[in-house]
C-alpha cells in the first residue's frame, strides 16, 4: 500500500504554478500563508510608518485628515486579518500534522482554498485606495453611522470581510477535524504539544465568532443599501447595537490572535531551558478559561456608550477575572525557566521578551478594565499603547520566535545566529521606544485617531515616531535573514535544538514532502509532556 503510494508520488512533478496554485500539501500551504503574512506585515507596517511620519511633529505635513483616517483603518485591517491571523494559520498548517504524527490536515483541498481566498480579498481591499472616496476610513471597527458615510469602497470592504471570514471558518474546521481525528495512535490529547491545544481552542473561538462578525457587517450593508434600520434610531434601531455585535466578535478575536502565541512560547521556553513545561495541565485549563471568559467581557470596549450601572459592574468584574488565568500562564513560564539550564539563542530571546512585554500589556489591560478609570483612558493613546504591547511584542514577537525556532526545520538550513540576535535587540529596544511613550500621551490627554495634535504632546510623539522608524527598518533585516536561510546555510540536523521535544524533531530537516505516511510509534521520551508526568513534584 505505502509502496504504491510513494511510487505514484515520485512520478508527480508539477510545474511552479501548478504546484503553488493547486497544492493540497500542508507544508506548501503553510509556506504560502507565512510568505503572504510576511508581505502583509510589511504592507501594514508601511502604512504605520506613514502614520508615524505624519505624527512626528504637530501640524499637518504629509497627508490630509481624510487620508490619515484611511491609513489608520487599513493599517489595522491589514495587520489583524492579513498579517497576524494568517501567520498563525501558517504555523498551524506546517506544525500540527507533524506534531500529531498525521500525514496532512484532515481536509487538504479545503485547506488550499482557505489560503487562496486571502490574496484575492486583500487585492480587493487594497484597490479601495484608488476608488472614489478612497479606502475605508471609519476605523477597523467600522462603527455606524460613520461607516455608512463611506464612499465606493464600502461594499468592497464588506465583501472582503466576508471572504476573510470564510477563509478563517474553513481553516478552523480543518484544524478541529485534524486535531480530533488525525492524531497518530498513542498521541492522546494530553500528550499533544501545548501549541496543538492552543490552536484547538482558538479554532473553536473562530467558529463561534466569525459568523457574528459576518452578521454585523451584513447588517451595515443592508442599512446602507436595502432600507433596513438596524443601527438607525429614526427607523427604530440603535448604533450601539452594532458595537455589541461587533465586540462580541471583537473580543474573542483578540484572543484568537494571542492563544496560538501562548502555544508557541510554551514550546520554546522548555526547549531552551532544557526543562519540561511547568504545569502542562494547568496551562490547558488556563487557556480554556481564557477562551470561555473571552465571550463575556465584550462591553469593556464600550464603557462610555451610556450603560446601566449593573452592566458596567458585571463587565468590569468579568474583565478583571481574565487576569487570573493569564497570570497563571505567566507564572508557569517563569517556573519553567526557574532552575533550568538556559541558553539564549534568538527564539529564546524573543520568547523571554514576549513574557515580559506581553505582561506589561496585560497590566495596562487590567487598568483599562477598571470602568471609572476607563472613562479617562477610553479612546486615548493609552488604549493604543495597551493593544500594541499585547500585539507587537506579544503576538508578533511570538511569530518571530516561532520563525527562528522552526525555520531550520522547514528549510534544512540554520539561520545566521549573530544576525538573528541583532534583529532581536534592534526590535526589542525600538518597539519599546515606539509604544511606551504612548501610555504617557494617553494619560496626558491625547485622543486616538487624530492626524494632528496640540504641541504639548509633541515630545513623546517625536520619540514614538523615531522608535517606529527604527522598528520598521529592523524588520528589513528579518526579511533578509529569512530569504538567506531559505537559500542556504549550515545544514540543520533533525533535532536542531538540544532541548527540543516533539514529533516534528524526529523528522529530517527539511522533512520530506509527505511525512508520517505511516503513523509513527509514540515514544513518551520524545514528547514534551505525558500523563505520567502529572504527579506532584512539590
Amino acid at each position: 500500500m505505502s509502496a504504491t503510494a510513494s511510487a505514484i508520488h515520485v512520478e508527480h512533478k508539477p510545474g511552479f504554478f501548478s504546484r503553488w496554485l493547486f497544492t493540497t500539501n500542508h507544508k506548501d500551504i503553510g509556506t504560502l500563508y507565512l510568505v503572504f503574512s510576511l508581505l502583509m506585515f510589511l504592507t501594514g507596517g508601511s502604512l504605520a510608518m506613514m502614520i508615524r511620519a505624519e505624527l512626528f511633529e504637530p501640524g499637518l505635513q504629509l497627508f490630509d485628515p481624510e487620508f490619515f483616517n484611511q491609513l489608520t483603518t487599513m493599517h489595522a485591517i491589514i495587520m489583524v486579518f492579513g498579517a497576524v491571523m494568517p501567520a498563525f494559520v501558517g504555523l498551524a498548517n506546517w506544525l500540527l500534522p507533524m506534531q500529531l504524527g498525521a500525514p496532512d490536515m484532515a481536509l487538504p483541498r479545503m485547506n488550499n482554498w482557505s489560503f487562496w481566498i486571502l490574496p484575492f480579498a486583500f487585492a480587493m481591499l487594497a484597490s479601495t485606495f484608488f476608488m472614489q472616496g478612497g479606502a475605508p476610513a471609519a476605523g477597523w471597527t467600522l462603527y455606524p453611522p460613520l461607516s455608512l458615510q463611506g464612499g465606493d469602497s464600502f461594499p468592497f470592504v464588506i465583501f472582503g470581510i466576508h471572504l476573510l471570514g470564510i477563509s478563517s471558518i474553513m481553516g478552523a474546521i480543518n484544524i478541529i477535524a485534524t486535531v480530533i481525528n488525525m492524531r497518530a495512535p498513542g498521541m492522546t490529547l494530553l500528550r499533544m504539544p501545548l501549541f496543538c491545544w492552543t490552536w484547538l481552542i482558538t479554532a473553536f473561538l473562530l467558529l463561534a465568532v466569525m459568523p457574528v462578525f459576518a452578521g454585523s457587517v451584513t447588517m451595515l450593508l443592508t442599512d446602507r443599501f436595502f432600507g433596513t434600520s438596524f443601527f438607525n434610531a429614526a427607523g427604530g434601531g440603535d448604533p450601539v447595537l452594532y458595537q455589541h455585535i461587533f465586540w462580541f466578535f471583537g473580543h474573542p478575536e483578540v484572543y484568537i490572535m494571542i492563544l496560538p502565541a501562548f502555544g508557541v512560547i510554551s514550546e520554546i521556553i522548555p526547549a531552551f531551558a532544557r526543562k519540561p513545561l511547568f504545569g502542562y495541565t494547568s496551562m490547558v485549563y488556563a487557556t480554556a478559561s481564557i477562551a470561555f471568559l473571552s465571550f463575556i467581557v465584550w462591553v469593556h470596549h464600550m464603557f462610555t456608550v451610556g450603560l446601566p450601572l449593573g452592566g458596567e459592574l458585571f463587565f468590569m468584574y468579568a474583565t478583571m477575572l481574565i487576569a487570573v488565568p493569564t497570570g497563571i500562564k505567566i507564572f508557569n513560564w517563569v517556573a519553567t525557566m526557574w532552575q533550568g539550564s538556559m541558553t539564549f539563542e534568538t527564539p529564546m530571546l524573543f520568547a523571554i521578551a514576549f513574557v515580559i512585554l506581553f505582561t506589561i500589556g496585560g497590566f495596562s489591560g487590567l487598568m483599562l478594565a477598571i470602568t471609572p478609570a476607563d472613562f479617562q483612558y477610553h479612546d486615548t493613546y493609552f488604549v493604543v499603547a495597551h493593544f500594541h504591547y499585547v500585539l507587537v511584542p506579544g503576538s508578533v514577537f511570538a511569530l518571530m520566535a516561532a520563525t527562528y525556532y522552526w525555520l531550520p526545520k522547514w528549510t534544512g538550513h540554520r539561520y545566521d545566529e549573530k544576525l538573528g540576535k541583532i534583529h532581536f535587540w534592534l526590535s526589542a529596544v525600538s518597539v519599546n521606544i515606539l509604544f511606551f511613550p504612548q501610555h504617557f500621551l494617553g494619560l496626558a490627554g491625547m485622543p486616538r485617531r487624530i492626524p494632528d495634535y496640540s504641541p504639548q504632546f509633541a515630545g513623546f510623539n517625536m520619540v514614538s515616531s523615531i522608535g517606529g522608524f527604527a522598528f520598521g527598518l529592523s524588520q528589513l533585516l528579518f526579511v533578509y535573514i529569512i530569504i538567506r536561510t531559505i537559500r542556504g546555510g549550515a545544514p540543520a540536523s533533525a533535532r536542531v535544538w538540544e532541548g527540543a521535544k516533539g514529533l516534528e524533531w524526529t523528522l529530517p530537516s527539511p522533512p520530506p514532502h509527505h511525512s508520517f505516511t505511516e503513523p509513527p510509534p509514540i515514544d513518551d521520551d520524545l514528547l514534551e509532556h505525558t500523563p505520567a508526568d502529572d504527579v506532584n513534584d512539590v
Partner: protein
Amino acid sequence: MGFATVRSRHTQSLAAVVLALVATPLQVAGADWGMNMTKGVTGFSRDVYHLHMLIFSICVVIGFIAFGAMIYSMIKHRKSRGATAAQFHHSTKVEIIWTVIPFLILVGMAVPATRTLILMEETGHADMTVKVTGYQWMWKYEYLDEGISFYSRLARNSDFARRPESGTDVRSVENYLLEVDHHVVLPTHTKIRFLLTAGDVIHAWWVPALGWKRDAIPGFINQAWTMIDKEGIYRGQCAELCGKDHGFMPIVVEAVSPEKYKTWVTQRLAEQSGKAADQNAVVAN
C-alpha cells in the same frame, strides 16, 4: 583585562549615541512631556486619579516580583554557568496559591472601583442642565434652564494654522487645536447635569479635568453629572472617530464662580435677544 577595556569603550560610545538620540527630542519646542493623568477639578476626577494610581502601583509591585524572578533566573540558571536543569514540572499547591492570591488582589481593586462607579451614576438632584449635541465637526450647547444656546467651533487661528498651505508654525498659535470661539461657561460648586446626543454620527465629549467622557449618540440621550471645585479653563477634545475633522472639534469649559455665571447668563441672553431682534427687523423690512 583587554576584554574589560573593549567593553567599556563600547559602553561609552553606546551611551553617547543614546544621549544624542534622547537630547534631540528633549529640545522639542512646546512639548510638555506630561506623563500622568490629571487629578482634575472635581471629586470624581480625584477619585479616578487615585484609583488609577492604586491599580498602577499594584501592577508595578507584581511586575517587580515576576520580572525580578525572571532576571535572577536568567543570570543564575544558565547553561554557560554550568547550571544543570531540574526536572520538576508540576505542583498543584503552587498553582492554587498563584490563583487565589491574584484573585484576592483583584477583589481588593474591585471594591474602591465599585464605590467610585456607583457615585458617578447619581445624576439626580441636579441644579442645572446643559444639553450637548455633537455634530460633524462642532458642538452645540443648550442651557435648558436658562434658554441659552450656541455652537462652539475650533478657533479661527487654529483652523487656519492647521491647513498646510497656510505656512504657519502651529507652535506659534496659542492653545493650538484646543481653543474654540465660544466657551462653555459653567458655575463652580453647582451640580450640573449633562444630556449628550449627536446630530449625525457618534461623537464623544471629553474634558479630562472633569474626570469622565461620554459618547454622544445620534437618536439617543446620555446623561452625566459634574460638580467643578475650582474656577479655571479646562480643555478637552472629541473622543470618538467622527470623520475627517475628528481631531479638530475641541471643547473648552470655563468654570466661574456662581455670581460671575449669573452675570454671563444675563449677558448671553441679551446678546441672543439682540440678535433675534435684528433678524426680526430684517424680516419685517
